[in-house]
């Protein structure tokens, strides 16, 4: 809007005009940056808990047969603390090495069941099938069953990573 001859000269009016815009931009940034952090903050939070959750006694497990354990955990979502029941299949072949698997089907989140006769996990929703280690056998499942960290102390099984 200024004349071509005047563009390089910074007069008082031009300086104050630019300063006003600069301060305005600073204030806008002062609102925008905290607002974005505020909005996306909880989305970035990792929900992994590092606590060891006691599941039960290891001598309950038959060798080579995934056994279902249930545990109640406290989970905080936002400002609400919920009691949540989680189910975990624990497998051992020798009584020393243990594997803990989620019973949630990796396809769409239904619960899988251990079918004794066929020695396979079966998901009733879309016929997903996993073997005893939770590896894919057939069906629309995209990946093996999720594993959890597990440890055994004096016959007591603990898991974490839910």
């Amino acid at each position, binding site marked *: 809007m200024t004349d071509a001859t005047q563009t390089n000269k910074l007069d008082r009016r031009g300086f104050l005009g630019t300063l006003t815009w600069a301060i305005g931009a600073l204030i806008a940034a002062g609102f925008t940056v905290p607002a974005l952090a*505020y909005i996306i*903050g*909880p989305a970035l939070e990792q929900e992994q808990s590092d606590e060891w959750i006691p599941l039960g006694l290891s001598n309950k497990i038959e060798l080579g047969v995934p056994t279902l354990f249930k545990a109640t955990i406290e989970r905080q979502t936002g400002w609400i603390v919920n009691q949540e029941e989680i189910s975990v299949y624990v497998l051992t072949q020798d009584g020393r090495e243990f594997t803990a698997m989620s019973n949630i089907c990796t396809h769409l989140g239904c619960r899988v069941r251990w079918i004794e006769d066929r020695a396979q996990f079966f998901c009733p929703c879309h016929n997903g099938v996993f073997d005893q280690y939770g590896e894919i056998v057939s069906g629309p499942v995209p990946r093996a069953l999720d594993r959890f960290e597990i440890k055994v102390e004096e016959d007591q099984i603990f898991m974490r990573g839910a």
Partner: protein
Amino acid sequence: MTSRIGNWLEERMGWRSVWETVFLRKVPKVNWFYTLGSATLFVALNQMITGILLTIYYVPTPTQAYDSVQYITTQVPAGWLIRGLHHWGASAMVLLTVLHMLRVIFYGAYKYPREVTWFTGVGLLVLVLGFGFTGYLLPWDQKAFWATTVGTRIAEVTPFVGDWILRIMRGGEELTAVTLARFFGVHVWFLPAALIALLGVHLYLVIRIGISNMPKRKEE
């Protein structure tokens, strides 16, 4: 580049004349007290932005209101800042609105032809106090609860209709979940809608009539 976009939009929207009317209008030679209205407007914008942000996490129920406010203050990134701005901005709103009003009184700026600007301004002051009153309950802590208990009791003193006013404010005899929910609804829907409407008229009149000159000691 910016001027090309500006020209393109100007051709289609005619925004430049609006811009010039709003921001490049002539003002008389005045002092810093004449910025109090703009300061109030700025804080009002602050209240709108931070208030909208607070609704993302705040839940107006007795079991969750307090916890959700604590969550905002201690867990959410910059939550303390957003809440702090809204909290302190609320006090600043009342303060600035009153100071702005005092300036208008002392400089006689409410006189012809600016009476309607003054009327809407009085309405805006009432709305600001309404915001303060309803907003004070929302954190649902002891102070909020008892302040509203007392505040609604004060309204009860009104002759003849006091009992009704108390019941309408509380949504019943007691201060309950119903009270919290309706204070929230009034705070974030009723009052903002009324504020924007009145503020629109107020600012339209300021721009249309222009601001008053400083009063002279003697007639010239």
